[in-house]
């Protein structure tokens, strides 16, 4: 007879013991199990008596509604920026759009050079400052708290993953939303597209490097992130390309943190 862990007692109380655990439950002391299941059910009843479900459900529903409104507001905010481009006052925005419409930058990490008819896949980074935006070039100096908006150009590729690596070695996924997203979720739009959310820089030192990894078949997000994570502990993580399987293309943009401007002239 063995004592069961709490999580398995919880499953037993709900009659949801997984197949992989049935032997374990059968080997358990039935008296002890019955007693612990009864305790769980008593605790549930007491909790519901102390804290009725309805107010909690209302709070949760309100939060879901609020988050949905925030997503809508973000979409509207992006639409406002596009609207500004039609006004004479928004010269800076027009200038940015003109830059984005120009030829793409060189693609030093492109492993399949020669196919350039649609330009190389690349990212553009913009810094929000009030109602204006500023395009950030390679090695632009940024500070903790700066809000960065990324925009990708697919360059004829159909799938992509966008991630960043900072000077503290932390890797952040920007697209798709989740590391456990299915490969189909890495599909990217053929037109230049801004990511749905901006990104506030933290106090990580030295640099922030954004990677755009693309392919013409769906990408495994976790494996792709593993390549970025593998680069993180290396001394040359600021400059080295990712070790990627054949057929994948990569492009990176490095921003310098304000406390390390001395490295500004270093080439990628």
């Amino acid at each position: 007879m063995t004592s069961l862990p709490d999580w398995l007692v919880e499953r037993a109380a709900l009659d949801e013991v997984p197949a992989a655990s049935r032997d374990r439950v059968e080997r358990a002391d039935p008296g002890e199990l019955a007693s612990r299941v009864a305790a769980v059910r008593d605790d549930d009843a007491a909790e519901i008596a102390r804290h009725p479900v309805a107010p909690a459900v209302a709070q949760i529903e309100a939060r879901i509604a609020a988050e949905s409104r925030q997503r809508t507001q973000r979409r509207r905010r992006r639409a406002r920026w596009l609207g500004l481009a039609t006004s004479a006052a928004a010269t800076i925005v027009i200038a940015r759009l003109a830059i984005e419409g120009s030829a793409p930058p060189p693609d030093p990490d492109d492993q399949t050079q020669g196919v350039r008819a649609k330009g190389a896949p690349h990212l553009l980074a913009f810094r929000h400052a009030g109602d204006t935006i500023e395009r950030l070039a390679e090695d632009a100096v940024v500070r903790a708290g700066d809000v960065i908006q990324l925009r990708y150009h697919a360059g004829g590729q159909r799938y992509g993953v966008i991630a960043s690596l900072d000077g503290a070695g932390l890797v952040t996924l920007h697209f798709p939303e989740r590391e456990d997203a299915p490969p189909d979720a890495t599909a990217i739009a053929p037109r230049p597209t801004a990511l749905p959310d901006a990104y506030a820089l933290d106090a990580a030192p030295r640099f922030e490097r954004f990677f755009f990894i693309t392919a013409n078949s769906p990408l495994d997000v976790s494996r792709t992130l593993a390549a970025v994570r593998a680069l993180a502990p290396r001394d040359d993580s600021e400059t080295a390309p990712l070790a990627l399987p054949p057929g994948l293309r990569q492009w990176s943009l490095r921003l310098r943190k304000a406390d390390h401007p001395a490295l500004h002239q270093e080439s990628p």
Partner: protein
Amino acid sequence: MVLRRCRKLLGDEQAARDAMHDVFVQILSRADELHDGAPSSLLFRTATNVCLNRIRARRRRPEDGDPELLVQIAAHTDPAARSAARAALDALFRHEPETTALIAVLHLHDDMTLEEVAAEVGMSVSGVRKRLHKLRTKLHALEVSP
């Protein structure tokens, strides 16, 4: 079940209640992806992830508390002193996928067998074993390095 899980991982009543709300917001926000079947596994897994994220956030602000749960994981992995384990944890998990932390908690903290962990996270048993082996190797390397 969700509140008890959050209490156990976070050790704080108010934080556990906040986390419980996060769990249901996360799950209900993706209601169109839910399917019929035993929901306890999804609730348990989501609660664990929400709490781990809160513990990570605490670790970025060390004045807020002590990452007891992750220290327990390290203590199971090797009987090193708690202080040494705590110092190693940042490096241990920094470059690992989030699922590795989940796997470590389920196996080392919740006493799930490899088969149970595999079923819970939707991986193969060998995949789970490899992740845990890699974590142990990494912890050992951290401890022997100067």
